[in-house]
Protein backbone atom coordinates (compact mmCIF):
# COMPACT_ATOMS: atom_id res chain seq x y z
CA UNK A 1 0.00 0.00 0.00
CA UNK A 2 2.58 2.54 1.09
CA UNK A 3 5.13 0.90 -1.25
CA UNK A 4 2.70 1.34 -4.13
CA UNK A 5 2.24 5.00 -3.11
CA UNK A 6 5.99 5.53 -2.86
CA UNK A 7 6.60 4.20 -6.38
CA UNK A 8 3.92 6.39 -7.92
CA UNK A 9 5.07 9.65 -6.37
CA UNK A 10 7.23 11.87 -8.57
CA UNK A 11 10.63 13.32 -7.80
CA UNK A 12 13.60 12.23 -5.73
CA UNK A 13 13.28 10.47 -2.41
CA UNK A 14 13.41 13.70 -0.40
CA UNK A 15 10.48 15.20 -2.33
CA UNK A 16 8.47 12.00 -1.96
CA UNK A 17 9.10 11.92 1.78
CA UNK A 18 8.01 15.54 2.02
CA UNK A 19 4.78 14.84 0.11
CA UNK A 20 4.01 11.82 2.30
CA UNK A 21 4.68 13.83 5.47
CA UNK A 22 2.35 16.61 4.36
CA UNK A 23 -0.32 14.07 3.41
CA UNK A 24 -0.03 12.39 6.82
CA UNK A 25 -0.37 15.76 8.57
CA UNK A 26 -3.43 16.58 6.46
CA UNK A 27 -5.04 13.26 7.42
CA UNK A 28 -4.26 13.92 11.07
CA UNK A 29 -5.75 17.42 10.89
CA UNK A 30 -8.90 16.06 9.28
CA UNK A 31 -9.19 13.48 12.07
CA UNK A 32 -8.79 16.15 14.78
CA UNK A 33 -11.29 18.49 13.14
CA UNK A 34 -14.03 16.15 11.99
CA UNK A 35 -13.55 12.42 12.52
CA UNK A 36 -12.67 12.36 16.24
CA UNK A 37 -15.36 14.85 17.35
CA UNK A 38 -17.88 12.77 15.40
CA UNK A 39 -17.00 9.45 17.03
CA UNK A 40 -16.28 10.77 20.56
CA UNK A 41 -19.95 10.63 21.69
CA UNK A 42 -19.92 6.87 21.07
CA UNK A 43 -16.99 6.25 23.41
CA UNK A 44 -17.92 4.51 26.66
CA UNK A 45 -16.48 7.09 29.06
CA UNK A 46 -16.87 10.78 29.85
CA UNK A 47 -20.43 10.48 31.15
CA UNK A 48 -20.80 12.96 34.00
CA UNK A 49 -24.54 13.22 34.59
CA UNK A 50 -26.89 11.17 36.72
CA UNK A 51 -30.12 9.77 35.36
CA UNK A 52 -31.15 8.40 31.95
Amino acid at each position, binding site marked *: *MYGWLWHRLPGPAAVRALILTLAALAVLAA*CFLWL*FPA*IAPFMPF*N*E*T*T*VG*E
Partner: protein
Amino acid sequence: MTSETTTEPAAPTRRERRKAGRSHARDVVYSVVGVIGEVLITLGVLLFAFLLWQLWWTDVVGNRVQAEIVAELPFEPVPTATPSAGAPAGPVIAPPRRDEPPPVMAEPAHGTTFATIQVPRWAGEPERPISQGTDRATVLDVLGAGHYEGTAMPGDVGNFAVAGHRTTYAKPFNRVEELQVGDPLVIRTTDNIWYVYRVTSTQVVPPSAIDVIAPVPGDPGAVPTERFITLTTCHPMFSARERFIVHGVLDYWAPTSDGIPAELVGGA
Protein backbone atom coordinates in the same frame (compact mmCIF):
# COMPACT_ATOMS: atom_id res chain seq x y z
CA MET B 1 20.22 -27.93 -13.16
CA THR B 2 18.57 -30.25 -15.63
CA SER B 3 19.31 -30.34 -19.32
CA GLU B 4 15.89 -28.88 -19.99
CA THR B 5 16.84 -25.47 -18.68
CA THR B 6 19.76 -25.22 -21.05
CA THR B 7 17.78 -25.90 -24.21
CA GLU B 8 16.77 -22.34 -24.94
CA PRO B 9 14.63 -20.87 -26.39
CA ALA B 10 12.44 -23.85 -25.65
CA ALA B 11 9.01 -23.22 -24.19
CA PRO B 12 8.83 -23.55 -20.37
CA THR B 13 8.06 -27.06 -19.25
CA ARG B 14 4.95 -27.92 -17.34
CA ARG B 15 6.98 -28.15 -14.14
CA GLU B 16 8.40 -24.66 -14.66
CA ARG B 17 5.02 -23.24 -15.45
CA ARG B 18 3.64 -24.78 -12.32
CA LYS B 19 6.56 -23.42 -10.33
CA ALA B 20 6.04 -19.94 -11.78
CA GLY B 21 2.34 -20.11 -11.00
CA ARG B 22 3.06 -21.13 -7.45
CA SER B 23 5.51 -18.27 -6.92
CA HIS B 24 2.99 -15.86 -8.44
CA ALA B 25 0.38 -17.10 -5.97
CA ARG B 26 2.89 -16.63 -3.19
CA ASP B 27 3.51 -13.05 -4.33
CA VAL B 28 -0.22 -12.33 -4.19
CA VAL B 29 -0.52 -13.78 -0.68
CA TYR B 30 2.49 -11.79 0.48
CA SER B 31 1.19 -8.52 -0.92
CA VAL B 32 -2.28 -9.09 0.58
CA VAL B 33 -0.74 -9.84 3.98
CA GLY B 34 1.47 -6.78 3.56
CA VAL B 35 -1.50 -4.52 2.84
CA ILE B 36 -3.42 -5.93 5.83
CA GLY B 37 -0.38 -5.29 8.00
CA GLU B 38 -0.07 -1.73 6.78
CA VAL B 39 -3.78 -1.13 7.39
CA LEU B 40 -3.47 -2.46 10.94
CA ILE B 41 -0.43 -0.29 11.65
CA THR B 42 -2.29 2.72 10.25
CA LEU B 43 -5.31 1.97 12.48
CA GLY B 44 -2.97 1.71 15.46
CA VAL B 45 -1.47 5.11 14.70
CA LEU B 46 -4.97 6.60 14.28
CA LEU B 47 -6.05 5.10 17.61
CA PHE B 48 -3.06 6.74 19.28
CA ALA B 49 -3.97 10.01 17.57
CA PHE B 50 -7.53 9.68 18.91
CA LEU B 51 -6.20 9.28 22.45
CA LEU B 52 -4.02 12.33 21.94
CA TRP B 53 -7.04 14.29 20.71
CA GLN B 54 -9.33 13.12 23.52
CA LEU B 55 -6.91 13.41 26.41
CA TRP B 56 -4.99 16.53 25.39
CA TRP B 57 -6.48 18.46 22.50
CA THR B 58 -10.03 18.71 23.93
CA ASP B 59 -8.46 20.30 27.03
CA VAL B 60 -6.47 22.78 24.93
CA VAL B 61 -9.55 23.84 22.95
CA GLY B 62 -11.88 23.68 25.96
CA ASN B 63 -9.70 25.85 28.19
CA ARG B 64 -9.40 28.49 25.48
CA VAL B 65 -13.11 28.49 24.63
CA GLN B 66 -14.26 28.50 28.27
CA ALA B 67 -11.90 31.36 29.14
CA GLU B 68 -13.38 33.33 26.21
CA ILE B 69 -16.92 32.57 27.40
CA VAL B 70 -16.15 33.84 30.90
CA ALA B 71 -14.38 36.94 29.54
CA GLU B 72 -17.43 37.81 27.44
CA LEU B 73 -20.01 37.43 30.22
CA PRO B 74 -21.75 40.75 30.98
CA PHE B 75 -20.38 41.07 34.51
CA GLU B 76 -20.35 44.48 36.12
CA PRO B 77 -16.91 45.41 37.46
CA VAL B 78 -16.31 44.53 41.09
CA PRO B 79 -15.20 47.60 43.09
CA THR B 80 -11.67 47.85 44.38
CA ALA B 81 -10.43 50.13 47.13
CA THR B 82 -8.38 53.14 46.15
CA PRO B 83 -5.11 53.78 48.00
CA SER B 84 -6.17 57.38 48.70
CA ALA B 85 -8.90 56.17 51.06
CA GLY B 86 -6.30 55.54 53.73
CA ALA B 87 -6.36 51.80 53.31
CA PRO B 88 -4.00 50.09 50.84
CA ALA B 89 -5.30 49.40 47.35
CA GLY B 90 -6.89 46.03 46.94
CA PRO B 91 -10.14 44.17 46.73
CA VAL B 92 -13.17 45.27 48.69
CA ILE B 93 -14.56 42.39 50.71
CA ALA B 94 -18.29 42.02 50.20
CA PRO B 95 -20.15 41.76 53.52
CA PRO B 96 -21.97 38.41 53.70
CA ARG B 97 -25.72 38.79 53.32
CA ARG B 98 -27.88 36.41 55.29
CA ASP B 99 -30.52 38.94 56.33
CA GLU B 100 -32.97 38.20 53.56
CA PRO B 101 -33.46 35.54 50.87
CA PRO B 102 -31.09 36.02 47.93
CA PRO B 103 -32.43 37.20 44.58
CA VAL B 104 -32.93 34.30 42.18
CA MET B 105 -32.76 34.57 38.41
CA ALA B 106 -35.16 32.75 36.10
CA GLU B 107 -33.93 29.67 34.23
CA PRO B 108 -32.37 30.83 30.96
CA ALA B 109 -32.73 29.21 27.54
CA HIS B 110 -30.85 25.97 26.82
CA GLY B 111 -27.18 26.59 26.12
CA THR B 112 -27.10 30.04 27.73
CA THR B 113 -24.15 30.68 30.02
CA PHE B 114 -25.57 32.37 33.11
CA ALA B 115 -23.02 31.84 35.88
CA THR B 116 -19.47 30.89 36.78
CA ILE B 117 -17.99 28.73 39.51
CA GLN B 118 -14.78 29.35 41.43
CA VAL B 119 -13.42 26.90 43.96
CA PRO B 120 -10.59 28.24 46.15
CA ARG B 121 -9.60 24.67 47.07
CA TRP B 122 -8.70 24.16 43.40
CA ALA B 123 -6.00 26.84 43.48
CA GLY B 124 -4.77 27.53 39.96
CA GLU B 125 -8.04 26.61 38.30
CA PRO B 126 -9.66 29.44 36.33
CA GLU B 127 -13.18 30.76 36.76
CA ARG B 128 -15.37 28.26 34.87
CA PRO B 129 -18.64 28.96 33.04
CA ILE B 130 -21.94 27.26 33.91
CA SER B 131 -24.51 26.99 31.13
CA GLN B 132 -28.07 25.76 30.95
CA GLY B 133 -28.48 22.07 30.06
CA THR B 134 -26.49 18.88 30.59
CA ASP B 135 -26.29 17.19 27.21
CA ARG B 136 -22.79 16.67 25.94
CA ALA B 137 -23.13 17.85 22.36
CA THR B 138 -24.47 21.33 23.07
CA VAL B 139 -23.26 22.06 26.62
CA LEU B 140 -20.82 19.80 28.46
CA ASP B 141 -18.39 19.18 25.58
CA VAL B 142 -18.41 22.74 24.28
CA LEU B 143 -19.39 25.18 27.05
CA GLY B 144 -18.04 23.57 30.23
CA ALA B 145 -20.18 22.77 33.26
CA GLY B 146 -23.95 22.49 32.78
CA HIS B 147 -26.98 23.15 34.98
CA TYR B 148 -29.55 20.33 35.19
CA GLU B 149 -32.68 21.77 33.62
CA GLY B 150 -35.56 21.98 36.05
CA THR B 151 -33.40 22.04 39.17
CA ALA B 152 -33.15 25.18 41.31
CA MET B 153 -31.23 28.23 40.14
CA PRO B 154 -28.38 29.64 42.27
CA GLY B 155 -29.61 30.84 45.65
CA ASP B 156 -33.07 29.32 45.28
CA VAL B 157 -34.66 26.95 47.77
CA GLY B 158 -34.04 23.50 46.34
CA ASN B 159 -31.03 21.95 44.66
CA PHE B 160 -28.83 23.88 42.21
CA ALA B 161 -27.40 20.87 40.36
CA VAL B 162 -24.42 21.14 38.01
CA ALA B 163 -22.63 18.50 35.91
CA GLY B 164 -19.12 18.82 34.55
CA HIS B 165 -16.35 16.76 32.96
CA ARG B 166 -13.73 15.36 35.28
CA THR B 167 -11.43 14.37 32.42
CA THR B 168 -11.19 15.82 28.90
CA TYR B 169 -12.99 18.88 27.49
CA ALA B 170 -11.04 21.19 29.85
CA LYS B 171 -12.06 18.94 32.80
CA PRO B 172 -13.68 21.66 34.96
CA PHE B 173 -14.35 19.21 37.82
CA ASN B 174 -11.04 17.35 37.56
CA ARG B 175 -10.01 18.01 41.17
CA VAL B 176 -13.39 17.25 42.70
CA GLU B 177 -11.94 14.62 45.00
CA GLU B 178 -9.81 17.25 46.77
CA LEU B 179 -12.89 18.97 48.17
CA GLN B 180 -13.39 18.80 51.93
CA VAL B 181 -16.42 19.50 54.08
CA GLY B 182 -16.69 23.26 54.64
CA ASP B 183 -14.90 24.25 51.44
CA PRO B 184 -16.52 27.22 49.69
CA LEU B 185 -18.01 26.92 46.18
CA VAL B 186 -18.42 30.43 44.82
CA ILE B 187 -21.07 31.00 42.15
CA ARG B 188 -21.38 34.32 40.34
CA THR B 189 -24.38 34.90 38.10
CA THR B 190 -24.87 37.28 35.21
CA ASP B 191 -27.37 39.04 37.48
CA ASN B 192 -24.20 40.13 39.38
CA ILE B 193 -24.80 38.21 42.58
CA TRP B 194 -22.27 36.08 44.48
CA TYR B 195 -23.59 32.88 46.05
CA VAL B 196 -21.15 31.23 48.43
CA TYR B 197 -21.98 27.60 49.15
CA ARG B 198 -20.15 25.29 51.56
CA VAL B 199 -19.49 21.62 50.91
CA THR B 200 -21.46 19.41 53.29
CA SER B 201 -20.72 15.93 51.91
CA THR B 202 -19.32 13.95 49.00
CA GLN B 203 -20.38 10.51 47.81
CA VAL B 204 -19.96 8.00 44.99
CA VAL B 205 -23.17 6.69 43.47
CA PRO B 206 -24.24 4.57 40.49
CA PRO B 207 -25.15 6.56 37.35
CA SER B 208 -28.85 5.85 37.88
CA ALA B 209 -28.94 7.71 41.24
CA ILE B 210 -31.13 10.57 40.02
CA ASP B 211 -32.18 11.39 43.60
CA VAL B 212 -28.85 13.15 44.27
CA ILE B 213 -30.19 16.08 42.24
CA ALA B 214 -33.64 16.01 43.86
CA PRO B 215 -34.73 19.29 45.54
CA VAL B 216 -33.73 17.66 48.83
CA PRO B 217 -30.71 15.50 47.87
CA GLY B 218 -31.41 11.83 48.51
CA ASP B 219 -35.07 12.40 49.36
CA PRO B 220 -37.00 12.79 46.08
CA GLY B 221 -40.43 13.30 47.64
CA ALA B 222 -39.47 15.91 50.22
CA VAL B 223 -40.33 19.59 49.99
CA PRO B 224 -37.11 21.62 50.25
CA THR B 225 -36.55 24.33 52.80
CA GLU B 226 -32.81 24.77 52.28
CA ARG B 227 -30.70 26.10 49.42
CA PHE B 228 -28.52 23.22 48.20
CA ILE B 229 -25.88 22.86 45.52
CA THR B 230 -24.88 19.56 43.94
CA LEU B 231 -21.98 18.86 41.57
CA THR B 232 -21.94 15.63 39.55
CA THR B 233 -19.02 14.23 37.56
CA CYS B 234 -17.67 10.86 36.47
CA HIS B 235 -15.97 8.37 38.75
CA PRO B 236 -13.48 6.82 38.65
CA MET B 237 -11.63 9.03 36.24
CA PHE B 238 -11.85 7.91 32.59
CA SER B 239 -14.79 5.68 33.45
CA ALA B 240 -18.56 5.93 33.28
CA ARG B 241 -19.08 3.26 35.92
CA GLU B 242 -20.03 5.58 38.78
CA ARG B 243 -20.57 9.26 39.56
CA PHE B 244 -18.79 11.44 42.08
CA ILE B 245 -21.25 13.72 43.86
CA VAL B 246 -20.59 16.84 45.94
CA HIS B 247 -23.38 18.33 48.05
CA GLY B 248 -23.31 21.76 49.62
CA VAL B 249 -25.58 24.34 51.17
CA LEU B 250 -25.77 28.12 50.75
CA ASP B 251 -23.75 30.05 53.31
CA TYR B 252 -24.40 33.62 52.18
CA TRP B 253 -24.89 35.81 49.16
CA ALA B 254 -23.79 39.33 48.17
CA PRO B 255 -24.25 41.67 45.24
CA THR B 256 -21.04 41.96 43.22
CA SER B 257 -21.32 45.76 43.56
CA ASP B 258 -20.51 45.30 47.28
CA GLY B 259 -17.12 43.72 46.51
CA ILE B 260 -15.66 40.25 46.32
CA PRO B 261 -16.27 37.31 48.71
CA ALA B 262 -13.50 36.96 51.26
CA GLU B 263 -13.13 33.33 50.14
CA LEU B 264 -11.79 34.48 46.77
CA VAL B 265 -9.12 36.77 48.14
CA GLY B 266 -5.79 34.99 48.05
CA GLY B 267 -4.44 33.93 51.43
CA ALA B 268 -7.71 34.75 53.19
